[in-house]
């Protein structure tokens, strides 16, 4: 029995490589971010733009004060920042979930059934070029300045990303997989649920990733026009009050929450599905 390169040694090599790679990534990311902050700071100071481009130091301390709820200057935006963020988050998630609930089954059916495709594809292709923000006035007309209007706009805007990706996934399934499933007795709903859906998961997750980012983007646009609460509302108010630091504070929080949401929802889903059964994930 040879003991060269036993499992433990190899595992140690893997760990060492992973640590190396992680450290490298963190260092490079830090350099990139520091570069952005440096340019920002230099511009702000050099051109004396305090009023419209406050330096990162000011904005970051504004973020911290806001998050710790201990701002020296008055808070002009009603409820606390957490309530605004939560309101936005729930709207984005609701719109996203509704869009997923409709887009994924529709995508699977359109991808697999010629009849469904021929009925639905023209309709969807006609609606697709209308940008999400173009729906905002109509949504306000229908639902007023309410949560529903914002959720509706997110729903409309994010449907397409998930639909087109799901459809592409369903359509590109290796035909022999479907034939095997049919030969081993899967039909109708069982075939969709047990075979077509899992086979399309990689594409569906791509669609969800795009749609979730899009939902968060769209929420801010919709809230700027159609809400009395939420980060979009904070942004708009900060502009009316001419408070650039608050404006940028809200933008930073949008970035952080969007980043965190993507990690939380999509990565979790990914780990629990294709992470298990696909190579190199």
């Amino acid at each position, binding site marked *: 029995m040879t003991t060269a390169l036993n499992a433990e040694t190899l595992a140690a090599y893997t760990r060492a490589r992973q640590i190396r790679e992680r450290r490298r990534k963190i260092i490079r990311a830090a350099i990139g971010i520091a570069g952005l902050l440096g340019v920002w700071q230099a511009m702000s100071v050099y051109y004396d733009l305090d009023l419209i481009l406050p330096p990162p130091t000011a904005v970051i301390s504004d973020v911290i004060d806001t998050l710790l709820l201990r701002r020296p200057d008055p808070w002009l935006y009603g409820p606390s920042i957490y309530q605004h963020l939560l309101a936005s988050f729930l709207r984005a998630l609701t719109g996203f979930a509704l869009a997923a609930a409709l887009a994924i089954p529709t995508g699977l059916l359109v991808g697999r059934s010629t009849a469904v495709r021929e009925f639905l594809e023209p309709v969807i292709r006609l609606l697709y070029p209308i940008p999400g923000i173009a729906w905002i006035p109509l949504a306000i007309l229908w639902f007023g300045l309410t949560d529903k209007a914002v959720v509706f706009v997110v729903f409309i805007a994010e449907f397409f990303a998930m639909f087109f990706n799901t459809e592409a996934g369903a359509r590109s399934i*290796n035909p*022999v*997989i479907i*034939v*095997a*499933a*049919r*030969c*081993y*007795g*899967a039909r109708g709903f*069982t075939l969709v649920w047990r*075979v077509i859906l*899992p*086979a399309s*998961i990689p594409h569906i997750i791509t669609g969800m990733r795009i749609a979730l980012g899009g939902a968060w983007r769209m929420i801010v646009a919709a809230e700027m026009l159609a809400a009395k609460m939420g980060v979009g509302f904070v942004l708009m108010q900060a502009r009316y009050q001419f408070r650039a630091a608050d404006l940028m504070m809200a933008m930073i929080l949008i970035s952080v929450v969007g980043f965190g949401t993507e990690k939380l929802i999509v990565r979790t889903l990914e780990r629990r*599905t*294709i992470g*298990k*059964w*696909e*190579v190199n994930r």
Partner: protein
Amino acid sequence: MGASAATAPRETSARIVIQAHEINHAYEASTGWSTALAHFNLEIPEGEFLCVLGPSGCGKSSFLRMLAGLMFPLEGSLLVHGEKIIGPGLDRAIVFQEAALFPWLTAAQNVGFGLEMAGWKKPQVRERVEHVLDIVGLSAAAGKFPYQLSGGMKHRVAIARAWAMTDAAVLLMDEPFSAIDAINRAGLQEHLVRTWLAEPRTVVYVTHDIEEAIYLADRIAIMTPSPGRVGAEIRIDLPRPRDRNSAAMAALKEEITAKMNEMERRA
């Protein structure tokens, strides 16, 4: 190998499982109609390992797809236990040229898929899956996903998936090892023979490889070049597992090659 020599349990009065009668088939391609099968007749008794041997394009795969219920003969009849095939069904299990495993299921779950579809209870499925994985020598890989298996192991899982189907009257194999390299192919053939000896089933095995057919089959149905029909039948009475290098195998290979060449000439 110390295993006692075994041959197919053959009774002259064995029940006929598959009956193909006067099948004519053609398909419409962009260049017009193309005949695949003409006057195709074949009967397969229970428990027989039948190889359908023929050159590329002779329609042997068409015949297998008809048996699977994936396509239908234009003329003639094709019966399983006296009943017309109307589509894919759990009374037939199939092994494809690709392993065609479901990537999101473990080896065990892949093998149990058909049983689950057939409405088996979970404990029975588990028991049967364990048994079949043991036969193909993959018990240790039960919990692995397809990407974690080698090409040969994937094919053994595919064979186990078919073998698991106890209610299947016939197992259909469509050139299952033709895309595998020669060394691994020989190993897979040995596995298949061992599996068949452990649990004999009626098998229809389509191949274009003469040696493979001689190594595996109780009987070889040799097809003529297109349009295909059964041009000759050869019974292989050698005990299993067979010695690939024996004089008997060589003689059979020569005989079959001669027959196929003659068919080629006449076509």
